[in-house]
């Protein structure tokens, strides 16, 4: 599935749900919540997290988790505000798309 344009919203949501979390747990969270639908190369999550940090939407620090040193990410206040705005945008978008394409399969299409 092509997640272009939606990865930021997914990552911000995962970090909101998990609180402070490292990249691996964010990916596991996305995989579980999407029931395997989001089959993206796992490595792509890290550049996206770095970009969100560069833009001030997440902050990160090294922490020891289960006796392992890991980079842990959390939302910043700007990240929470962006998440609220993106969630509103997505709901409007999804409602519009749903209204256009309809809830049932189209005749003649498999």
């Amino acid at each position, binding site marked *: 599935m092509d997640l272009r344009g939606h990865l930021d919203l997914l990552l911000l949501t995962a970090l909101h749900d998990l609180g402070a979390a490292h990249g691996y747990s964010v990916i596991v969270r996305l995989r579980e919540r999407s029931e395997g639908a989001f089959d*993206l190369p796992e490595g*792509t999550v890290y550049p996206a997290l770095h970009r969100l940090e*560069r833009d001030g939407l997440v902050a990160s620090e090294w922490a020891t988790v289960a006796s392992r040193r890991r980079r842990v990410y959390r939302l910043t206040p700007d990240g929470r505000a962006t998440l609220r705005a993106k969630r509103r945008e997505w709901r409007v978008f999804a409602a519009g798309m749903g209204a256009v394409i309809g809830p049932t399969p189209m005749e003649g299409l498999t």
Partner: protein
Amino acid sequence: MTEPDSVERYLDDLFDRLSGTGGAGRRALAEAEEHLRDDVAEAVSRGVPADLAAREAVARFGRAADLARRLRRANRSHRALALSSGWLVAGWASAIVALSFLLTAVDRLVELRRTPGNAVECASTTCPTQTQALEHYLALTVGFGLLGAGLLLARRVVRPVPVPAALPILTAVVSALLTPVFLFGALSPVLSDLNLLVGSAGIYFTLFVGVVLGAATLASAGWAIAVRRRPAVAAG
């Protein structure tokens, strides 16, 4: 010494591709290693053989080249971008100036063979001979050629940051605006005074730069279209 597993080879490859990225690259490499080791450990705990678990973890993580490209893009600063773009533009500009000097040098050489020993037409009391003019332009060709080649090669070796996404369209617009200035400056008698402003660059300077800018306009417009169409899987 045991053979490195898939994870080790992948991390070595990623390390090579992240050269020059400093602390951001080191941190990304550490995160990649943690992630892959966790993934392998989790699979092994489910009974998957270690070799297979390592290969599958690497496959799921994605190609090192793609990851390195995204990491460079994610961590680049505006200052580094400006420096990188300026470096690139300076390199190409030097190469173009060198080529214009080369054309002028060839012109002088042809002229010298036709009328050997004659002074170059000029208003000054100390006019150079055609041989002196030829040597002058050849020296400038070599100087600017070396400068341009040095800048462009150094940029490839150092690999600072990728060019910004806006550079192609910016180049197209600037080239499109400058093309008529140089092209008609070279061809039009009205604007021929422009040659005096850049006279030291050779008599073909304005014409040559005008043609190059015209080509650059078309090339950078195509480049901008290609950049926009390039797939960016999960680019967020």
